[in-house]
């Protein structure tokens, strides 16, 4: 398979600058996970202490939303750039993969395809397209609501839990067949079985203790706590062009507040991440500064992003060919 990088748009960056930005750091990664897990623990303790009162609803909402951002750690460790140490990347890749309910092998290989063929709809298909066309507008809005995704699970062709259960049963789904090499599929099935086994243990624990708490802490956060992760994640490509070889046309950079930017592991600089995936998330802001004169103007905040995404997705509900026309510097 030939991928000519020259056929994809690349901004000009001095090689020494890019190499410096591409260096990994254990300190940056460790600092992130310490703050992240401390915040998760703190919100989890508050949820426990207030269990039985309405305050627990608020604190579980906070806990669940922090928990769901394990997805961002999964993504960066998937690239192997979160830490300098391969061992630390591997350990936190497995931890965060379980937390975000991503069977790690499937998501490693589909992410390779996603980077080679961002938003390509055929040969090969990018299984990480978040809003397929024609857009299901109701399903799009339900993604932001706690437990909302469950209402459209019958329409979802790769709902992560459903897919993992199928893989655990040894069923070779289209995503496994098309994106994961045959020699890697047994590993995907193995890790799917590990995840499902842990889920069963947690469910059993909830039954034995006659308490929702084990499930609320470990399995259900991805169902009730995905609001802010989804708000951030759907800014990446929604409403933009498919089948283009210029990430500026298919991908969006957004300027977020420091809290969301931290939880989201700087993935709001998403055009820069796609063009230069060697650069660790910790350095994406600096990379953005280095190339911003060659990029479309970033959207300012979630409001800035969704002011163009929502009208575009609604239009794509009836006109699958529609996409936002991005102005790129001459």
């Amino acid at each position: 398979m030939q991928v000519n990088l020259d056929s994809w748009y690349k901004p000009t960056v001095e090689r020494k600058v890019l190499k410096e930005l591409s260096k990994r750091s254990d300190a940056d990664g460790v600092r992130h996970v310490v703050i992240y897990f401390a915040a998760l623990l703190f919100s989890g303790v508050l949820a426990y202490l207030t269990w039985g009162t309405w305050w627990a609803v608020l604190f579980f909402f906070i806990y669940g939303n922090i928990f769901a951002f394990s997805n961002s750690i999964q993504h960066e460790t998937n690239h192997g750039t979160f830490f300098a140490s391969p061992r630390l990347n591997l350990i936190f890749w497995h931890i965060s993969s379980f937390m975000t309910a991503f069977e790690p092998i499937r998501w490693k290989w589909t992410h390779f395809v996603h980077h080679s063929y961002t938003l390509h709809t055929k040969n090969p298909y990018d299984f990480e397209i978040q809003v397929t066309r024609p857009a299901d507008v109701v399903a799009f809005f339900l993604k932001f609501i706690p437990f909302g995704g469950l209402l459209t699970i019958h329409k979802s062709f790769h709902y992560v839990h459903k897919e993992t259960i199928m893989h655990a049963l040894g069923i070779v789904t289209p995503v496994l067949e098309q994106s994961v090499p045959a020699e890697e599929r047994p590993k995907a099935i193995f890790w799917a079985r590990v995840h499902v086994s842990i889920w069963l243990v947690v469910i059993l624990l909830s039954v034995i203790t006659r308490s929702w708490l084990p499930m609320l802490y470990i399995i259900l956060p991805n169902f009730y706590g995905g609001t802010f992760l989804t708000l951030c994640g759907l800014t990446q490509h929604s409403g933009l062009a498919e089948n283009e070889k210029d990430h500026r046309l298919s991908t969006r950079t957004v300027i977020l507040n420091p809290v969301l930017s931290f939880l989201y592991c700087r993935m709001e600089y998403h055009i820069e991440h796609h063009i230069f995936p060697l650069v660790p998330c910790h350095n994406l802001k600096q990379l953005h500064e280095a190339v911003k004169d060659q990029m479309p103007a970033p959207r300012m905040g979630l409001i800035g992003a969704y002011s163009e995404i929502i009208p575009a997705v609604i239009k794509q509900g009836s006109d699958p060919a529609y996409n936002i026309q991005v102005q790129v510097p001459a």
Partner: protein
Amino acid sequence: MNNGEWYQVCAADDIDEEDVMGFEYNGKYYAIYRLLGDNFYASDGLCTHEQVKLADGFVFNGCIECPRHNASFDVKTGKAETPPATVDLRSYRAERRGDKVFVLLN
């Protein structure tokens, strides 16, 4: 056995330490690496995963990383160290002679 031809690739100073440079010879693309000191190595120049030019990547800790998917190869041996690369790179002998660098191509 030295079957092949020693090809003068570049001046030694053309490559920084812990860096890579690409070159073409007889229509084929190669990569030459310089590790710390005067240690030069060479390999095929395209990633074995999706044929991306490795010279657009970087050398870290003795490995060249593909700029596309972060697949890495041991510069000294060509061994594929991380996925998505699963096939090793073919390596070639490289050495410095005076201020020039030569690669044995066959």
